[in-house]
Protein backbone atom coordinates (compact mmCIF):
# COMPACT_ATOMS: atom_id res chain seq x y z
CA UNK A 1 0.00 0.00 0.00
CA UNK A 2 1.11 3.55 -0.60
CA UNK A 3 1.42 6.14 2.11
CA UNK A 4 -1.02 9.05 2.26
CA UNK A 5 1.22 10.90 4.68
CA UNK A 6 4.94 10.62 5.15
CA UNK A 7 6.74 12.66 7.78
CA UNK A 8 10.50 12.51 8.09
CA UNK A 9 12.39 14.09 10.98
CA UNK A 10 9.69 16.71 11.44
CA UNK A 11 10.38 19.31 14.13
CA UNK A 12 8.42 22.44 15.01
CA UNK A 13 10.01 24.81 17.50
CA UNK A 14 8.31 27.71 19.25
CA UNK A 15 11.25 29.54 20.82
CA UNK A 16 12.89 26.97 23.05
CA UNK A 17 9.85 24.68 23.08
CA UNK A 18 9.89 21.73 20.72
CA UNK A 19 6.16 21.18 20.17
CA UNK A 20 6.96 18.48 17.65
CA UNK A 21 10.36 16.92 18.10
CA UNK A 22 12.00 14.98 15.29
CA UNK A 23 9.09 12.68 14.41
CA UNK A 24 9.11 10.20 11.56
CA UNK A 25 6.07 8.15 10.60
CA UNK A 26 3.82 7.32 7.72
CA UNK A 27 0.07 6.78 7.44
CA UNK A 28 -1.19 4.34 4.85
CA UNK A 29 -3.71 5.38 2.28
CA UNK A 30 -7.20 4.18 3.11
CA UNK A 31 -6.64 3.60 6.83
CA UNK A 32 -8.42 5.07 9.84
CA UNK A 33 -5.59 6.22 12.06
CA UNK A 34 -5.84 7.48 15.62
CA UNK A 35 -3.55 10.30 16.71
CA UNK A 36 -3.62 10.10 20.48
CA UNK A 37 -1.87 11.90 23.27
CA UNK A 38 -2.31 14.11 26.29
CA UNK A 39 -3.17 17.80 26.26
CA UNK A 40 -0.25 19.76 24.92
CA UNK A 41 1.47 16.68 23.57
CA UNK A 42 1.75 18.21 20.09
CA UNK A 43 -1.24 16.65 18.29
CA UNK A 44 -2.74 19.85 16.94
CA UNK A 45 0.65 21.29 15.93
CA UNK A 46 1.39 18.10 14.04
CA UNK A 47 -1.96 18.22 12.25
CA UNK A 48 -1.41 21.85 11.31
CA UNK A 49 1.94 20.91 9.83
CA UNK A 50 0.37 18.03 7.89
CA UNK A 51 -2.22 20.33 6.37
CA UNK A 52 0.13 23.14 5.45
CA UNK A 53 -1.26 25.56 8.03
CA UNK A 54 2.05 25.80 9.81
CA UNK A 55 5.65 25.39 8.70
CA UNK A 56 8.20 22.87 9.89
CA UNK A 57 11.37 24.06 11.60
CA UNK A 58 13.17 20.99 10.27
CA UNK A 59 12.36 17.81 8.41
CA UNK A 60 9.93 17.19 5.59
CA UNK A 61 6.28 16.25 5.14
CA UNK A 62 4.72 14.75 2.09
CA UNK A 63 0.97 14.29 1.61
CA UNK A 64 -0.05 12.17 -1.39
CA UNK A 65 3.57 12.41 -2.50
CA UNK A 66 3.95 16.20 -2.38
CA UNK A 67 4.62 18.93 0.14
CA UNK A 68 1.28 20.30 1.43
CA UNK A 69 2.54 23.87 1.91
CA UNK A 70 0.75 26.30 -0.45
CA UNK A 71 0.06 23.34 -2.72
CA UNK A 72 -3.45 23.44 -4.16
CA UNK A 73 -3.26 20.00 -5.74
CA UNK A 74 -2.69 18.49 -2.28
CA UNK A 75 -4.93 20.76 -0.23
CA UNK A 76 -8.01 20.26 -2.39
CA UNK A 77 -7.86 16.62 -1.33
CA UNK A 78 -7.55 17.43 2.36
CA UNK A 79 -10.29 18.28 4.83
CA UNK A 80 -9.10 19.42 8.25
CA UNK A 81 -11.80 19.75 10.89
CA UNK A 82 -10.39 21.86 13.67
CA UNK A 83 -11.51 21.86 17.24
CA UNK A 84 -12.20 25.60 17.15
CA UNK A 85 -13.06 26.33 13.55
CA UNK A 86 -13.80 30.02 12.97
CA UNK A 87 -16.52 31.04 10.55
CA UNK A 88 -17.27 34.48 9.09
CA UNK A 89 -19.36 36.74 11.33
CA UNK A 90 -23.11 36.31 10.64
CA UNK A 91 -22.65 32.94 8.92
CA UNK A 92 -25.58 30.58 9.39
CA UNK A 93 -25.42 26.80 9.32
CA UNK A 94 -26.86 26.75 5.80
CA UNK A 95 -24.12 29.10 4.58
CA UNK A 96 -21.49 26.68 5.78
CA UNK A 97 -23.19 23.84 3.91
CA UNK A 98 -23.59 25.97 0.80
CA UNK A 99 -19.96 27.07 0.69
CA UNK A 100 -18.46 23.66 1.49
CA UNK A 101 -18.68 22.35 -2.13
CA UNK A 102 -16.44 25.27 -3.24
CA UNK A 103 -13.62 23.65 -1.28
CA UNK A 104 -14.43 19.94 -1.51
CA UNK A 105 -14.99 18.48 -4.96
CA UNK A 106 -16.47 15.23 -3.59
CA UNK A 107 -19.04 17.08 -1.45
CA UNK A 108 -22.29 15.13 -1.14
CA UNK A 109 -25.11 17.58 -0.42
CA UNK A 110 -27.73 14.87 0.13
CA UNK A 111 -25.53 13.15 2.69
CA UNK A 112 -24.94 16.52 4.41
CA UNK A 113 -28.70 17.16 4.57
CA UNK A 114 -29.28 13.71 6.02
CA UNK A 115 -26.64 14.36 8.69
CA UNK A 116 -28.07 17.79 9.54
CA UNK A 117 -31.38 16.10 10.21
CA UNK A 118 -29.83 13.28 12.24
CA UNK A 119 -27.78 15.68 14.34
CA UNK A 120 -30.87 17.92 14.70
CA UNK A 121 -28.98 21.00 13.63
CA UNK A 122 -31.07 24.16 13.06
CA UNK A 123 -30.06 25.25 9.53
CA UNK A 124 -31.16 28.84 9.87
CA UNK A 125 -29.34 29.56 13.11
CA UNK A 126 -26.26 31.74 13.21
CA UNK A 127 -23.05 29.84 13.87
CA UNK A 128 -22.14 32.04 16.82
CA UNK A 129 -25.48 31.28 18.45
CA UNK A 130 -24.90 27.52 18.36
CA UNK A 131 -24.09 25.57 21.50
CA UNK A 132 -20.66 23.99 21.84
CA UNK A 133 -22.05 20.58 20.87
CA UNK A 134 -23.94 21.94 17.87
CA UNK A 135 -20.81 23.71 16.70
CA UNK A 136 -18.95 20.42 16.90
CA UNK A 137 -21.62 18.70 14.86
CA UNK A 138 -21.21 21.30 12.10
CA UNK A 139 -17.56 20.22 11.89
CA UNK A 140 -18.44 16.54 11.94
CA UNK A 141 -20.98 17.00 9.13
CA UNK A 142 -18.52 18.97 6.97
CA UNK A 143 -15.83 16.36 7.61
CA UNK A 144 -18.04 13.42 6.67
CA UNK A 145 -19.87 14.94 3.69
CA UNK A 146 -16.70 16.37 2.14
CA UNK A 147 -15.45 12.82 1.46
CA UNK A 148 -11.95 14.26 1.11
CA UNK A 149 -9.29 11.61 0.32
CA UNK A 150 -7.55 12.75 3.52
CA UNK A 151 -9.88 13.80 6.32
CA UNK A 152 -8.41 14.94 9.61
CA UNK A 153 -10.58 15.38 12.69
CA UNK A 154 -9.01 17.25 15.59
CA UNK A 155 -11.09 16.54 18.70
CA UNK A 156 -14.25 16.61 16.58
CA UNK A 157 -16.71 16.15 19.38
CA UNK A 158 -16.20 18.63 22.18
CA UNK A 159 -19.58 19.00 23.83
CA UNK A 160 -21.24 16.34 21.69
CA UNK A 161 -23.60 14.14 23.68
CA UNK A 162 -23.25 10.35 23.74
CA UNK A 163 -26.01 9.86 21.15
CA UNK A 164 -24.36 12.27 18.72
CA UNK A 165 -20.93 10.67 19.23
CA UNK A 166 -22.32 7.23 18.50
CA UNK A 167 -24.03 8.66 15.43
CA UNK A 168 -20.69 10.08 14.30
CA UNK A 169 -18.92 6.72 14.71
CA UNK A 170 -21.70 4.85 12.90
CA UNK A 171 -21.88 7.26 9.97
CA UNK A 172 -18.09 7.42 9.73
CA UNK A 173 -17.81 3.62 9.52
CA UNK A 174 -20.68 3.23 7.07
CA UNK A 175 -19.52 6.00 4.76
CA UNK A 176 -15.88 4.93 4.99
CA UNK A 177 -16.89 1.42 3.92
CA UNK A 178 -18.63 2.79 0.82
CA UNK A 179 -16.07 5.49 0.07
CA UNK A 180 -12.71 4.38 1.46
CA UNK A 181 -10.40 7.24 2.34
CA UNK A 182 -7.67 8.13 4.78
CA UNK A 183 -8.97 9.37 8.11
CA UNK A 184 -6.90 10.75 10.97
CA UNK A 185 -8.79 11.01 14.22
CA UNK A 186 -7.34 12.88 17.16
CA UNK A 187 -9.14 12.31 20.41
CA UNK A 188 -9.02 11.82 24.16
CA UNK A 189 -11.92 9.36 24.18
CA UNK A 190 -9.68 6.41 23.38
CA UNK A 191 -11.96 3.64 24.62
CA UNK A 192 -14.79 4.90 22.44
CA UNK A 193 -12.79 4.87 19.23
CA UNK A 194 -10.31 2.05 19.79
CA UNK A 195 -12.36 -0.47 17.78
CA UNK A 196 -12.62 1.91 14.83
CA UNK A 197 -8.89 2.38 14.43
CA UNK A 198 -6.63 0.39 12.18
CA UNK A 199 -3.46 2.19 13.17
CA UNK A 200 -2.46 4.10 16.29
CA UNK A 201 0.04 6.91 16.72
CA UNK A 202 0.67 8.17 20.23
CA UNK A 203 2.51 11.43 20.70
CA UNK A 204 3.95 12.53 24.02
CA UNK A 205 6.06 15.63 24.64
CA UNK A 206 6.34 16.14 20.90
CA UNK A 207 7.65 12.66 20.21
CA UNK A 208 5.94 9.62 18.73
CA UNK A 209 6.06 6.93 21.42
CA UNK A 210 3.72 4.38 19.83
CA UNK A 211 3.36 3.74 16.09
CA UNK A 212 1.69 0.39 15.58
CA UNK A 213 -1.39 -1.36 14.26
CA UNK A 214 -4.36 -1.52 16.62
CA UNK A 215 -4.25 -5.32 16.37
CA UNK A 216 -0.68 -5.45 17.65
CA UNK A 217 -1.40 -3.08 20.51
CA UNK A 218 -4.39 -5.09 21.63
CA UNK A 219 -3.03 -7.59 24.10
CA UNK A 220 0.41 -5.97 24.08
CA UNK A 221 0.09 -5.37 27.82
CA UNK A 222 -1.39 -7.54 30.53
CA UNK A 223 -2.24 -6.83 34.13
CA UNK A 224 -0.85 -9.50 36.44
CA UNK A 225 -2.44 -9.72 39.88
CA UNK A 226 -1.47 -11.94 42.81
CA UNK A 227 0.43 -12.05 46.06
CA UNK A 228 3.27 -9.57 46.21
CA UNK A 229 5.96 -12.25 46.31
CA UNK A 230 4.54 -14.08 43.29
CA UNK A 231 4.18 -10.88 41.27
CA UNK A 232 7.72 -9.81 42.22
CA UNK A 233 9.04 -13.15 41.05
CA UNK A 234 7.08 -13.02 37.78
CA UNK A 235 7.91 -9.38 37.06
CA UNK A 236 11.64 -9.94 37.39
CA UNK A 237 13.40 -9.46 34.03
CA UNK A 238 10.22 -8.25 32.42
CA UNK A 239 9.19 -4.79 31.35
CA UNK A 240 6.89 -3.39 34.03
CA UNK A 241 4.78 -0.42 32.93
CA UNK A 242 2.97 0.11 36.17
CA UNK A 243 2.82 -1.27 39.67
CA UNK A 244 0.14 -1.09 42.37
CA UNK A 245 0.06 -2.63 45.82
CA UNK A 246 -2.80 -3.13 48.23
CA UNK A 247 -2.33 -5.16 51.38
CA UNK A 248 -0.41 -8.27 50.42
CA UNK A 249 -1.76 -8.12 46.87
CA UNK A 250 0.17 -6.60 44.03
CA UNK A 251 -0.75 -5.72 40.47
CA UNK A 252 1.75 -5.16 37.68
CA UNK A 253 1.15 -4.07 34.11
CA UNK A 254 3.56 -6.04 32.00
CA UNK A 255 4.44 -6.03 28.28
CA UNK A 256 3.64 -8.77 25.78
CA UNK A 257 3.31 -12.27 27.20
CA UNK A 258 3.82 -15.46 25.24
CA UNK A 259 1.57 -18.51 25.71
CA UNK A 260 4.30 -20.08 27.87
CA UNK A 261 4.41 -16.92 30.01
CA UNK A 262 0.67 -17.18 30.49
CA UNK A 263 0.92 -20.78 31.57
CA UNK A 264 3.76 -19.94 33.96
CA UNK A 265 1.68 -17.13 35.43
CA UNK A 266 -1.34 -19.39 35.86
CA UNK A 267 0.85 -22.04 37.51
CA UNK A 268 2.18 -19.40 39.93
CA UNK A 269 -1.42 -18.59 40.91
CA UNK A 270 -1.46 -15.20 39.22
CA UNK A 271 -4.54 -13.73 37.61
CA UNK A 272 -4.14 -12.21 34.16
CA UNK A 273 -6.42 -9.58 32.75
CA UNK A 274 -6.38 -7.51 29.59
CA UNK A 275 -5.30 -3.89 29.52
CA UNK A 276 -7.40 -1.66 27.26
CA UNK A 277 -5.78 0.63 24.73
CA UNK A 278 -6.74 3.58 26.91
CA UNK A 279 -5.11 2.05 29.98
CA UNK A 280 -2.02 1.16 27.97
CA UNK A 281 -1.64 4.74 26.78
CA UNK A 282 -2.20 6.12 30.27
CA UNK A 283 0.53 3.81 31.51
CA UNK A 284 2.90 4.88 28.77
CA UNK A 285 2.26 8.61 28.89
CA UNK A 286 1.21 9.15 32.49
CA UNK A 287 4.40 8.27 34.28
CA UNK A 288 7.65 10.14 34.21
CA UNK A 289 10.85 8.16 33.88
CA UNK A 290 11.63 8.92 37.51
CA UNK A 291 8.43 7.22 38.65
CA UNK A 292 9.23 4.13 36.62
CA UNK A 293 12.65 3.89 38.21
CA UNK A 294 11.12 4.40 41.61
CA UNK A 295 8.56 1.63 41.20
CA UNK A 296 11.05 -0.83 39.71
Amino acid sequence: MTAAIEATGVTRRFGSLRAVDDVTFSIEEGAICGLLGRNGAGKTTLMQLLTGQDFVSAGSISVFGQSPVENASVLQNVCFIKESQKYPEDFKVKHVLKSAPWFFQNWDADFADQLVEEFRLPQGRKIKKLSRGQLSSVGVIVGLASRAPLTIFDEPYLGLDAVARQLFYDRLLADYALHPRTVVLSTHLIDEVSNLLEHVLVIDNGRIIIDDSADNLRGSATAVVGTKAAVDEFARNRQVLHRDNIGGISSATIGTLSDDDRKAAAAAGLELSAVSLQQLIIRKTGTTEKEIEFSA
Partner: protein
Amino acid sequence: MDDSRPIFIQIAEQIENDILGGALPEESQVPSTNEYASFYRINPATAGKGVNVLIDSGILYKKRGIGMFVANGSRARIIAARRAQFHAEYITPLITEARNLDISPEELTDMIRKEGNS
Protein backbone atom coordinates in the same frame (compact mmCIF):
# COMPACT_ATOMS: atom_id res chain seq x y z
CA MET B 1 -15.23 -7.45 21.99
CA ASP B 2 -12.79 -8.07 24.78
CA ASP B 3 -9.47 -6.29 25.06
CA SER B 4 -7.14 -9.20 25.46
CA ARG B 5 -7.12 -10.50 21.89
CA PRO B 6 -7.05 -9.01 18.40
CA ILE B 7 -10.52 -8.09 17.15
CA PHE B 8 -10.13 -9.95 13.86
CA ILE B 9 -9.69 -13.23 15.73
CA GLN B 10 -12.81 -12.50 17.75
CA ILE B 11 -14.75 -11.80 14.55
CA ALA B 12 -13.58 -15.09 13.04
CA GLU B 13 -14.67 -16.90 16.23
CA GLN B 14 -18.02 -15.16 16.21
CA ILE B 15 -18.69 -16.29 12.64
CA GLU B 16 -17.64 -19.82 13.61
CA ASN B 17 -20.05 -19.67 16.55
CA ASP B 18 -22.83 -18.64 14.18
CA ILE B 19 -22.01 -21.62 11.96
CA LEU B 20 -21.94 -23.98 14.97
CA GLY B 21 -25.18 -22.59 16.36
CA GLY B 22 -26.96 -22.91 13.05
CA ALA B 23 -27.48 -19.19 12.45
CA LEU B 24 -25.31 -19.57 9.35
CA PRO B 25 -26.11 -22.95 7.75
CA GLU B 26 -23.67 -24.52 5.29
CA GLU B 27 -23.91 -23.09 1.77
CA SER B 28 -25.72 -20.01 3.08
CA GLN B 29 -24.48 -16.50 2.33
CA VAL B 30 -22.46 -14.72 5.02
CA PRO B 31 -22.96 -10.98 5.68
CA SER B 32 -20.43 -8.72 3.95
CA THR B 33 -17.40 -7.35 5.80
CA ASN B 34 -19.00 -3.91 5.74
CA GLU B 35 -22.12 -5.30 7.39
CA TYR B 36 -19.99 -6.94 10.07
CA ALA B 37 -18.05 -3.71 10.54
CA SER B 38 -21.14 -1.61 11.14
CA PHE B 39 -22.84 -4.27 13.28
CA TYR B 40 -19.88 -4.73 15.62
CA ARG B 41 -18.76 -1.09 15.22
CA ILE B 42 -15.27 -2.00 14.15
CA ASN B 43 -12.94 -0.95 11.38
CA PRO B 44 -13.95 -2.58 8.05
CA ALA B 45 -10.33 -3.59 7.42
CA THR B 46 -10.36 -5.49 10.72
CA ALA B 47 -13.63 -7.22 9.84
CA GLY B 48 -12.13 -8.13 6.47
CA LYS B 49 -9.09 -9.61 8.19
CA GLY B 50 -11.33 -11.81 10.36
CA VAL B 51 -13.26 -13.05 7.33
CA ASN B 52 -10.01 -13.73 5.49
CA VAL B 53 -8.84 -16.00 8.30
CA LEU B 54 -11.88 -18.18 7.62
CA ILE B 55 -11.45 -18.02 3.84
CA ASP B 56 -7.81 -19.10 4.19
CA SER B 57 -8.80 -22.05 6.35
CA GLY B 58 -11.57 -23.04 3.91
CA ILE B 59 -14.48 -22.44 6.31
CA LEU B 60 -15.86 -19.74 4.01
CA TYR B 61 -15.48 -19.39 0.27
CA LYS B 62 -15.99 -16.50 -2.13
CA LYS B 63 -18.25 -16.41 -5.14
CA ARG B 64 -16.92 -13.67 -7.33
CA GLY B 65 -19.31 -10.76 -7.55
CA ILE B 66 -21.87 -12.36 -5.25
CA GLY B 67 -20.35 -12.66 -1.80
CA MET B 68 -19.12 -15.14 0.77
CA PHE B 69 -20.67 -18.47 1.65
CA VAL B 70 -20.26 -21.13 4.31
CA ALA B 71 -18.38 -24.11 2.85
CA ASN B 72 -19.82 -27.59 2.88
CA GLY B 73 -18.56 -29.66 5.82
CA SER B 74 -17.25 -26.60 7.68
CA ARG B 75 -19.41 -27.25 10.73
CA ALA B 76 -17.76 -30.64 11.30
CA ARG B 77 -14.32 -29.09 10.82
CA ILE B 78 -14.97 -26.33 13.34
CA ILE B 79 -16.18 -28.94 15.83
CA ALA B 80 -13.02 -31.01 15.34
CA ALA B 81 -10.77 -27.98 15.83
CA ARG B 82 -12.67 -26.78 18.90
CA ARG B 83 -12.62 -30.23 20.48
CA ALA B 84 -8.85 -30.22 20.26
CA GLN B 85 -8.77 -26.97 22.31
CA PHE B 86 -11.50 -27.99 24.72
CA HIS B 87 -9.15 -29.58 27.25
CA ALA B 88 -6.77 -26.65 27.56
CA GLU B 89 -9.46 -23.97 27.52
CA TYR B 90 -12.14 -25.50 29.73
CA ILE B 91 -10.99 -28.64 31.58
CA THR B 92 -7.66 -27.35 32.92
CA PRO B 93 -9.06 -24.11 34.41
CA LEU B 94 -12.07 -26.02 35.77
CA ILE B 95 -9.81 -28.46 37.62
CA THR B 96 -7.59 -25.66 38.92
CA GLU B 97 -10.53 -23.74 40.36
CA ALA B 98 -12.08 -26.93 41.77
CA ARG B 99 -8.80 -27.62 43.62
CA ASN B 100 -8.75 -24.10 45.04
CA LEU B 101 -12.25 -24.69 46.40
CA ASP B 102 -11.44 -28.17 47.77
CA ILE B 103 -13.94 -29.78 45.42
CA SER B 104 -13.01 -33.44 45.08
CA PRO B 105 -12.89 -35.13 41.66
CA GLU B 106 -15.95 -37.18 42.68
CA GLU B 107 -17.94 -34.09 43.61
CA LEU B 108 -16.92 -32.47 40.37
CA THR B 109 -18.05 -35.43 38.24
CA ASP B 110 -21.34 -35.44 40.15
CA MET B 111 -21.86 -31.77 39.41
CA ILE B 112 -21.12 -32.24 35.72
CA ARG B 113 -23.46 -35.22 35.50
CA LYS B 114 -26.28 -33.31 37.21
CA GLU B 115 -25.79 -30.26 34.98
CA GLY B 116 -25.70 -32.45 31.87
CA ASN B 117 -28.98 -34.16 32.83
CA SER B 118 -30.90 -30.97 33.56
